[in-house]
């Protein structure tokens, strides 16, 4: 039993969370948010099959997501019309097939080299598909996209999927299946060899693998999951437009994956949850969310290139060695200046957005329960002082943290040699 829990505990927990979450967050908005998170998790993990596991930086992954969505939407409409006998629950597979077909073709064309060449080809293909999406309205539906109705007769579970909650559970099931499959893929010969090709394509050729074939296969499989995510998108929104194949969707999944961290399997899951939350919730709170988003991204690139998962996993050995208590006070120490610095920056940003986008810049603005005039020199001065002072103490505190860290890692190393 214990062994079973150890091995599958995390999966059980994931299932449990998926079941329970919509019971806690019951509003229509929350359930929509959760549904979108599920889709984003599949999409981001599939992107990480390229970037994290295959070393391929793509600027056009949304092509497969979008094409999967469009094909699924056409299929949905055929199902509704009774001309296509596929139960709606299996629609993501249709999207996946679209992804595979497109991925096979474009993957083969673009994977002769990795790195910059690949990145630029993916950018070019992305631009081409996005441009033709508007020029080929009979498939892509032009600006308005294609709409469908997910309430169809043909189901295997008996649900009608009229209610969002039913769709949520459908997405959750598919999400769990896809996550498990993608995890298992990392454990297969192809998954491992993809790592090898990422690390050192020349060497990989001398253990018998053609780098291009490995990349193409990995790419195609990633495109399958992206397409499946697109299929779920079609069911969830009952509309799909050309923007799903566009550069913005591609950029967004890149940011999710990177912020979550490419080095660990679960990283993109964190990224997908966080970024989806920011995109959908933060936008309702502040006009400046895009700026916060950009700052977060650049901050991650500069100071935490391994992403959220990297930050977490760095602490794993410390946690196991029961040394966290040595780090926590230092973290507490650095949190305060960070908080001050962040508050200062936030005040400054919010003031500026108030001046440029509010109903009337003369109106007082509300921030953190305080009401003040955006033009007030006090607010400007305070925010600047907070930023400067925060930065000053941040640097001081940082050296303390570094000191603690080196102590802890010394102890850890000592433990290893002993």
């Amino acid at each position, binding site marked *: 039993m214990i062994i079973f829990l150890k091995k599958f505990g995390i999966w059980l927990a994931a299932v449990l969370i998926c079941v329970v979450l919509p019971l806690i967050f019951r509003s229509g908005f929350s359930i929509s948010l959760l549904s979108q998170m599920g889709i984003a998790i599949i999409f981001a993990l599939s992107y990480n099959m390229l970037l994290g596991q295959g070393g391929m930086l793509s600027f056009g992954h949304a092509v497969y997501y979008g094409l999967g969505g469009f094909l699924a939407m056409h299929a949905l409409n055929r199902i509704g019309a009774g001309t296509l006998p596929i139960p709606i629950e299996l629609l993501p597979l249709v999207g996946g097939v679209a992804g595979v077909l497109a991925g096979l073709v474009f993957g083969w064309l673009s994977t002769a080299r990795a790195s910059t060449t690949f990145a630029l080809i993916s950018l070019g293909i992305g631009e081409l598909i996005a441009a033709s999406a508007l020029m080929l309205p009979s498939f892509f539906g032009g600006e308005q996209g294609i709409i469908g109705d997910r309430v169809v007769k043909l189901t295997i579970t008996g649900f009608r999927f009229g209610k969002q909650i039913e769709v949520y559970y459908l997405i959750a099931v598919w999400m769990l299946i896809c996550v498990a499959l993608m995890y*298992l*893929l990392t*454990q*297969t*010969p*192809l*998954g*491992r*060899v993809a*790592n*090898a090709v*990422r*690390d*050192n394509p*020349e*060497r*990989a*050729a*001398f*253990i*018998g*693998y*053609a*780098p291009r*074939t*490995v990349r193409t*296969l990995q790419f195609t*499989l990633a495109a399958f999951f992206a397409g499946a995510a697109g299929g779920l998108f079609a069911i969830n929104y009952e509309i799909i437009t050309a923007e799903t194949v566009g550069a913005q969707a591609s950029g967004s999944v890149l940011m999710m994956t990177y912020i979550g961290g490419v080095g660990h399997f679960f990283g993109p899951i964190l990224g997908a949850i966080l970024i989806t939350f920011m995109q959908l919730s933060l936008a309702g709170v502040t006009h400046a969310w895009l700026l916060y988003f950009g700052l977060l991204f650049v901050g991650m690139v500069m100071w935490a290139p391994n992403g959220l998962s990297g930050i977490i996993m760095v602490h794993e050995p410390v946690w196991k060695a029961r040394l966290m208590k040595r780090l926590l006070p230092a973290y507490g120490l650095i949190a305060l200046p960070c908080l001050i610095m962040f508050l200062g920056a936030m005040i400054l940003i919010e003031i500026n957005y108030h001046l440029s986008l509010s109903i009337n810049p003369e109106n007082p603005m509300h921030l953190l329960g305080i009401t003040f005039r955006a033009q007030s020199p006090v607010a400007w001065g305070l925010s600047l002082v907070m930023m400067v002072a925060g930065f000053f103490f941040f640097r001081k505190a940082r050296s303390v943290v570094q000191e603690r860290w080196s102590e802890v890692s010394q102890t850890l190393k000592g433990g290893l040699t002993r």
Partner: protein
Amino acid sequence: MSTTALKLADVHKSFGSSKIINGVNLAVAKGERHAIIGPNGAGKSTLFNLISGFYPLSAGYIELNGHMISNLPPHRINRLGLSRSFQVTNIFPKMSVFENVRCALLWPMGYGYSFWHLCDRLKKINAKAEEILERINLADRRHIPAGLLAYADQRALEIGITIAGNAEVILLDEPTAGMSLSETERAVELIRDVTTGKTLLVVEHDMQVVFNLADRISVLVYGEIVATDHPDKIRQNPQVQEAYLGKESA
């Protein structure tokens, strides 16, 4: 021709107008340990890169066990039974030591591009990888990312990757470069051990190593082989002494 493992016939290579390899003929017999020596810039690494398919030939041809391999891509040559190491350490730095070795076993043991097997369930492969790790003395560090190993250990790992696939012909490019004396000794032992029964072609600067290891030696000077013979004869060959050894022994 069944006794010849590797045959180079009138191999030429030029980059633009500069001729690097100028009509090399070489036959390495099965089971032979063959060394190539020569001064810097003689074209030794280029020759390796030609044999292993890294560069296309300008003229001539190369046969591996009777198969024409000139201008095949590297992975095809590898699948025909030729494996090589690199002058600059060339491993998979982010993967664990164990994973490095295991990856080298996947193709030769028939798992190809499979995405329907789980590596951890491939008992035969895992046992083989363990065995290789024991032989290259890295079993205790199997979970460390390969990029974090000490230099000599990385070289050992590279040899492990190179021989893992059980290739009949092994090319080693300066396997002991940059090692201390004691490390070199151990490396030579390792090479001797793991290449037993195989055909070995090695480029090496350290003459001690060469004379210790090789059955026959070829001397490459300015893209041409000036002599091929047993080590003792090479030592005495006046042409060789003038072209190469003369400087070293002086």
